[in-house]
């Protein structure tokens, strides 16, 4: 068993002519939560999209459980057991909550339905609005749905991009609680601007600036380093 579920090495990605990622490196430890921090436009979302295959890197390597995945299509990467919760949740607004969850299943079989049931227990709001159109949910509920969708399959790696974005503080609290309840089941790579949330959930951190990894280490170390926080996060 490889120590790192996900390894990203010296990743360079272009969007059109723009050299967005200029050498991103990160490693996600098994069953831990790794957070990607950085200012707006640093390249965090681009990194996530490169990992899940929506963008093809120009240079560098991405390895999942030791095997390279940088040339695979997104659906192939998903089938390997990588879940992706994008910025803005990516909910299918015209489908019902139930349908959203069913689409997420790789296969509609008994184990998946069992996991679906568990999700509904964990997120009671989703049970309540099970047959309502997903577009009518509140921001917080949509985020719960997005996360529940990710867990409907047995995931070995979960990529979550800015889950707290646009949510009220009390909803963020609820979200942290929900994520804490499921984090032990899988390895998580999290992108988060909300430092309090990152601090509450993450074990390791990687700091990205101008498309490059500039710092890394255990989360505890960052929490105490005011100079580093000020320089790269402005807080």
């Amino acid at each position, binding site marked *: 068993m490889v120590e790192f579920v996900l390894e990203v090495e010296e990743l360079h990605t272009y969007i059109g002519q723009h050299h967005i990622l200029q050498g991103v490196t990160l490693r996600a430890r098994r069953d831990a939560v790794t957070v990607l921090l950085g200012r707006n436009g640093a390249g965090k979302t681009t990194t996530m999209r490169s990992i*899940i295959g*929506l963008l093809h890197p120009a240079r560098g390597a991405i390895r999942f459980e030791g095997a390279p995945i940088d040339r695979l*299509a*997104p*659906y192939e990467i*998903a*089938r390997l057991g990588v879940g*992706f919760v*994008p910025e803005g949740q*990516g909910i*299918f*607004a*015209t*489908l019902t909550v139930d*349908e959203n969850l*069913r*689409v*997420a299943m*790789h296969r*509609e079989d008994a184990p998946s339905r069992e996991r679906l049931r568990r999700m509904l227990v964990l997120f009671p709001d989703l049970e309540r609005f099970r047959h309502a159109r997903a577009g009518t949910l509140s921001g917080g509920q949509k985020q719960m749905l997005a996360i529940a*969708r990710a867990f409907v*399959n047995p995931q070995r790696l979960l990529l979550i991009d800015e889950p707290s974005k646009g949510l009220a503080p009390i909803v963020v609290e609820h979200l942290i609680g929900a994520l804490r309840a499921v984090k032990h089941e899988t390895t998580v790579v999290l992108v988060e601007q909300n430092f309090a949330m990152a601090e509450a959930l993450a074990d390791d951190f990687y700091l990205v600036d101008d498309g490059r990894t500039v710092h890394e280490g255990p989360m505890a170390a960052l929490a105490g380093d005011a100079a580093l926080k000020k320089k790269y996060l402005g807080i």
Partner: protein
Amino acid sequence: MKRAAPVLIVLALALLPLLGMEPRVYLTLTVAGLAMGMLIFLVASGLTLIFGLMDVLNFAHGALFSWGAYAGFGAVLLLDRRAGWIESPSVALNALALLAAVAAAALVALVLGVALERVIVRPVYGQHMFQILITLGASIVLEELIRIVWGPNDQVMPVPISFQGSWDLLDVIVLRVPVVAIGLGLAVYVGLQLLLHRTRVGLIVRAGVESGEMVQVMGHNIYRYFTAVFALGSALAAVGGLMWAIFRQSVSPGMGGEQLIFAFIVVIIGGLGSVTGSLIGALMVGLSYNYVAFLLPKAALGVNMALMVLVLLVRPTGLFGASR
């Protein structure tokens, strides 16, 4: 309430012409209009799904309409000459002949559709301009092939005897073919709705219409669904073409191109990716065309253009379209 509005508008529009003509004429025109609408719906439904899911402007759709008509034409000629199923007074044989023609049209279109998608369309995904150009080129080639194999002139389409003529209901003459067309259209609509809302494939297609990217991220090979939807849309267009040939009792190589414009208007009115939208839109177009054609023949096409413009002004994404 928002969704009921278009339906109410259609009903209102449908009843309006009663003010200008006697009920018997109105009924005949209404049946003709509904039938025409249903046939356009067949073509438009495929087109709207292809647009909605794949973001592909398929100019070859009209050519598939023509090929469907000619494939059915060929089947019918064969059955007529070899087995006399068309001339036979037996309703069963006539129905069988019709079914055979439909099957021929659908089969030819499925094969052609898959070939087109793989060879012509797939290489240019995402590049709208080239999609438009290349499907246009393909449609020219396909139409010319018809002219080469079948000749460039219009030909008469034999219609099975039991479907010719009309029924006499309460002193009103109701033509048979339009009724068959309406029935077929409704069956297709119900079938499509069941497919989209009650099957897993339909679920994924509906999700894909909203976001192809997210569907991929969920582990589904969206390209396979693209091929399937393209093939289905092609088959629908082909059956539409066949029914149109029966309706008009003739086939001509350019028939696809002529009808494609109606299908486009309907897709714009109904909204990209919405089957219900294309049904309502098609009925609106069919009815208004027939009513206006009776009252002011030259303004018929103009009315549909005006409808399209009106919808664009009020709701640019179409009556049932998702705002993207």
